[in-house]
């Protein structure tokens, strides 16, 4: 009964703050929309310049293969100096140089084109490089076909390996599917930590926690009443987000069972909230708690495995990441929602979340009791 009235008080406090509710709504819809539709990690419209010294039919033909959506040819230049200028200023990220003896060498010992790429963004550069390699390779095959005269027959007669690549789960490698889910997981993580922690620190700052402590409520009741509104609001908002944004706008195929995903997510919110309480018991004011959350949250968000999967991490970081609940949640979330995995594949992630949840809960309950013992 006491617990219920405490929860009621917390809910009222949360709902009264209209701006806050609006921000939460925006976070779970607008932010997911901009992340899903705005970010593309594939290389598109890669700004390219061409330095064609050959001026031959073949060189023009090859240049015509560098086209949208991957490349965007900005200009044709005529000196090396111009290339330097374009790349230095960052206006172009790639320069294709076709040597004067291009045409002669095609028929002779093999022509080489030179591609200069701006390495400052190594990830997109790597991707662009592989597109260039594919383009030249395809063009080379095309030339060979022509040289041999017979298109079909020739290829029946030479040994060649034809690759058939199938990308599972996301056949067109759409970034929007990946980014919208990632943003949902990010927002869930941030909000459940911030809301709970801030609610408690505020009471500490105002001194109203003392008022609560002189009432007959138990310490654990205050504790639960602080966590409950976060779980409820994040739970509700994430449902809106999943159905409205993820399924509605981005048409992400939700292959797995929401009945598996949802309870684990709520438990994850509970875990993060416990962490929030633990931080709040350490910090004396909101500014301090913010710094503590920053140092915990940023590495957690960026090293969750979404950018650097565990197999690429350095050994120390791989072990360190085991203590981050978000690492398990990311793997769990993508596996269930995206890959449609059942509990058979994700039991270890669930176990991780539960174990860390229990540890954090025990720790913060202990801190809370010590801090606010009657």
């Amino acid at each position, binding site marked *: 009964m006491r617990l219920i009235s405490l929860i009621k008080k917390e809910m009222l406090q949360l709902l009264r*703050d209209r701006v806050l509710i609006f921000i939460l709504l925006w976070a779970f819809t607008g932010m997911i929309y901009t992340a899903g539709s705005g*970010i593309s990690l594939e290389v598109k419209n890669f700004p390219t310049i061409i330095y064609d010294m050959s001026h031959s039919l073949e060189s023009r033909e090859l240049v015509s293969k560098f086209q949208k959506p991957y490349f965007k040819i900005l200009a044709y230049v005529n000196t090396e100096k111009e290339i330097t200028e374009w790349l230095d200023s960052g206006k172009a*990220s790639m320069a294709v140089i076709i040597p004067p003896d291009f045409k002669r060498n095609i028929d002779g010992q093999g022509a080489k084109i030179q591609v200069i790429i701006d390495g400052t963004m*190594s990830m997109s550069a790597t991707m662009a490089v592989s597109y260039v390699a594919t383009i030249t390779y395809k063009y080379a095959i095309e030339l060979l076909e022509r040289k041999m005269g017979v298109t079909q027959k020739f290829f029946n007669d030479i040994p060649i390996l034809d*690759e058939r690549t*199938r990308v*599972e789960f996301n056949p067109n490698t759409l970034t929007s599917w990946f980014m919208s889910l990632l943003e949902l997981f990010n927002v869930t993580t941030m909000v459940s930590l911030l809301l709970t922690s801030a609610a408690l620190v505020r009471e500490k700052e105002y001194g109203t926690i003392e008022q609560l402590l002189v009432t007959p409520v138990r310490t654990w009741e205050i504790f639960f009443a602080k966590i409950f509104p976060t779980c409820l609001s994040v739970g509700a908002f994430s449902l809106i987000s999943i159905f409205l944004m993820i399924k509605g706008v981005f048409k992400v195929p939700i292959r797995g069972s929401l009945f598996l995903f949802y309870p684990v997510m709520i438990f994850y919110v509970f875990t993060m909230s416990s962490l929030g309480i633990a931080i709040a018991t350490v910090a004396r004011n909101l*500014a301090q708690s913010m710094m503590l959350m920053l140092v915990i949250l*940023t590495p957690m968000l960026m090293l969750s495995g979404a950018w650097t999967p565990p197999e690429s991490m350095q050994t120390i970081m791989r072990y360190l990441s085991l203590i981050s609940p978000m690492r398990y949640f990311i793997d769990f979330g993508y596996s269930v929602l995206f890959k449609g995995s059942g509990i058979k594949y994700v039991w270890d992630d669930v176990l991780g979340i539960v174990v860390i949840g229990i540890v954090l809960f025990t720790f913060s309950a202990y801190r809370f009791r010590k801090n606010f013992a009657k």
Partner: protein
Amino acid sequence: MFSRLGAILKKEFRELIRDPLYLSLTLFVPVIILILMGYGLILDVKNIPVAFLDFDRSALSRDYRHSFTNSEYFKFHSLVGSYKEAYELIQSGKCRVVVVIPPDFSRKLYSSKPTEVQFIVDGSFPSRAEIIKGYVSAINNQFNQNLLYNFSLMKGVSVKFPVDAELRAWYNPALESKNFILPGMLVTTLMFYPVLIASLVVVREKESGSIFNLYCSPVRTWEVVFGKAIPYITVSFVTYLILFIITVGVFNTKFIGSFFVLTLATLLYLACTIGVGIFISTIAKTQITAMLIAFLGTITPSFMYSGFFSPVTSMGITGQIMSKFVTATYFIGVVRGVYLKGLGLSHYLPNILSLILYALAVYCLAILFFRKRIG
């Protein structure tokens, strides 16, 4: 006029120094973040676990498998016996790619016929899947060129490969992601962390009520805004110096540009980001709201929309609009330029001009929204 500003500055500095825990947190938190991320965030796609479903099991198919496992990009995981096992590995995420070699692989190639090899790639991380596809093609192209070469030797005709691309990467020859992440981290850290520390300065006084002291004093709004901004700019400037030393000293990031240019741009940039924080603080009514706006509005956007991971030119239209609001977009070009390209000041004038405009806009907004009245 400046005596009032001086008085506010004195008060704010004192407030900062009186909370030593907070002050040390503001200095150390960014350092810890930079070190963790510098070690942890690796965008090189290497050691991709690969499994083979080899129905052929011939000498040729073994050679072909070795062309994958010998490269630094792939790491042998296992040989599987059936499609079911293959899918299981992809489903569980233990393998990112499975190569399916058909039973007639070597027979067809030896009898000069084309063959098909299937690749199943885990698409849960699309950008990595895209890179993996590129590596796979590169290995296949190489394999095909060898096949063709041997074939032409056998037949006695010359089938030369007519076109090839020679690649050179400027500024970062080995395409190491370290040289791209650490300068980027400097930018993003100096984006979210000053906003966060500044986002509470006004709203805190609103909540505790001490803002009324300011309301009824003769102090002007611009004096309050700058009086609150300057101490935090100073603190974050010290942080910048520490962060810079770490990127170059600890992580050995390539740095060939001028420290002076970088510092100049950083000062402007910090003025912008602190300004954003103060602006959030003047519009928010409660500390929680200010904090939420600051967290949600800076941490992930500073990574995603600034051009940290992927160039702004490849973003969709909503992303490009968002990137205009993120301060880091204007600064990242300067930092990467100074670190990796080593160009002179004149190359950055457009960026620096944008930062100046951004600062002007932010401070005007903050001064405009800071009303010296109740409600």
